[in-house]
């Protein structure tokens, strides 16, 4: 097997592994659109990274976290519904990113790679970012697991039990921002959320425990990466979209399997 294929599999597999548990939380907390909004803002972060001469991943983290905090502040006002606010921030930040990128005439950026991912051009540095960042994110998630579940079930109860609800919510947003920063290269900012929610949604029907759902989501995600990459190589299809199509196909297949309860 060619080296670039192995790197692509390792990168996609690592992202899918991480996306399983985190994506399960996105589904449980009904934050799919929120994840999408953060992902859309990532392009602005990339531009910012280039402008300031820092790693684009750091730019993405900074912009994602800023956006998440802005959203929390806006939601406190309660003048507009959450989905309307998300729509404004999502498309506003994506367009701002595109406009800002156009201003940087001297910069040659493969826009398509950022929007839809370029899994076949993964470098060793990317792999290190994925596995290093992924290890940090998974460790953080494991440490906060029980309390994040409690906050997801009922915030008032968690508060009365003395849990730092706002800090936990912020920590979860940081984890999502981290995943977006490291997954952007693989599936692109337009498709990141699908890798978070499709495997988790597919796993729901077969899971009896939160952990079971998270692990199964990781497995299904890795399967989708492998199937998508093979299809991409065989038929010369775009990598990121092929992975997402595979994940969606697995979801459809899974929903056809009869379950006895």
């Amino acid at each position, binding site marked *: 097997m060619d080296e670039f294929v192995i790197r692509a599999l390792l990168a996609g597999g690592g992202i899918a592994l991480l996306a399983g548990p985190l994506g399960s939380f996105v*589904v*449980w907390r*009904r934050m799919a659109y929120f994840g999408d909004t953060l992902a859309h803002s990532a392009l602005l972060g990339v531009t910012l990274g280039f402008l300031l001469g820092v790693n684009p991943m750091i730019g993405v983290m900074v912009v994602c976290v800023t956006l998440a905090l802005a959203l929390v502040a806006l939601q406190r006002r309660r003048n507009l519904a959450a989905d309307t606010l998300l729509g404004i921030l999502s498309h506003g930040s994506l367009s701002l990113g595109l406009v800002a990128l156009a201003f940087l005439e001297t910069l040659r950026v493969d826009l398509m790679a950022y929007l839809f991912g370029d899994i076949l051009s993964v470098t060793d540095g990317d792999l290190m970012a994925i596995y290093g960042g992924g290890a940090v994110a998974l460790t953080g998630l494991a440490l906060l697991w*029980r309390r994040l*579940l*409690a906050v*997801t*079930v*009922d915030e*008032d*109860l*968690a*508060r*009365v*039990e003395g849990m730092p609800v706002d800090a936990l919510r912020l920590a979860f947003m940081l984890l999502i921002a981290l995943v977006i920063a490291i997954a952007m290269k693989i599936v692109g900012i337009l498709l990141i959320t699908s890798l978070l929610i499709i495997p988790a*949604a597919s796993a*729901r029907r077969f*899971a*009896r*425990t*939160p952990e*079971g*759902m998270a692990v199964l989501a990781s497995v299904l995600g890795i399967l989708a990466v492998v199937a998508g990459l093979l299809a991409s190589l065989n038929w010369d299809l775009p990598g990121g979209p092929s992975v997402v199509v595979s994940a969606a196909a697995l979801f459809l297949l899974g929903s056809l399997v009869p379950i006895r309860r």
Partner: protein
Amino acid sequence: MSTPTLSRDESALFAGPLAWTEDLTVRFGRRTVLDRVNVAVQPGEVVTLIGPNGAGKTTLVRAVLGLVAPDGGRVLRRPNLRVGYMPQRLAVDRTLPLTVRRFLALWRPVTADKVEAALEEAGVTRLADSAVQTISGGEMQRVLLARALLGEPDLLVLDEPDQAVDVHGQAELFNRIAQVRQRRGCGVLLVSHDLHTVMARTDRVICLNSHVCCSGRPEDVSRHPEYHALFGGHARDLAVYVHHHDHAHAEDGKVVPEHDGSCCHG
């Protein structure tokens, strides 16, 4: 109602109330939901809050729990008070696969033995492996009781179950809570819409309508004119004894002191 004057440390030493409010005022926008409310729950005491819809019962409970910040006055608790909260309802998202047993273990590190004991004390052992989304409203109330008991509470706070729980289920729940109180000696702060449901199991009733209208033993409050004014025909046939009252109500519901008599706020 007597206003405690002890400091927090002293209250722990001298066995004062578990939790109390001092002139607690809460406003939502321009509406004053709670107006200088003074309530206290003593150890081992069952205190029931009654009052019409929108009287601020739930807000008072949420303020005692620390979920609503006071706009005036304050909420005080004994240091290190353990509070067990049973919300009115709890709907867990269907996407989250969660058994009752697992739900109980989410809130603090607990051993499997303790979970079993709490399931048994609340009478829901047979539901342990059911998904939380599949149990009935009445069953959920008892699961929430089990959850609260796992924290070994000094004070149990519960908002009355809503229509999802039938009358029989409510009576059973209140019996369970009365047993828990007897066995554990914890205080109970309870919200109810109807005095008669909880009358026999309550030590003290506080009739709330933004302010404390009257309070006392259930049989006294049920004869109180303020109680009748709020609940109308419900208890008219009981209006034999007229309780002394130290204030009147202006048209907007504000309290207008009549004279400096002090009786019913005892």
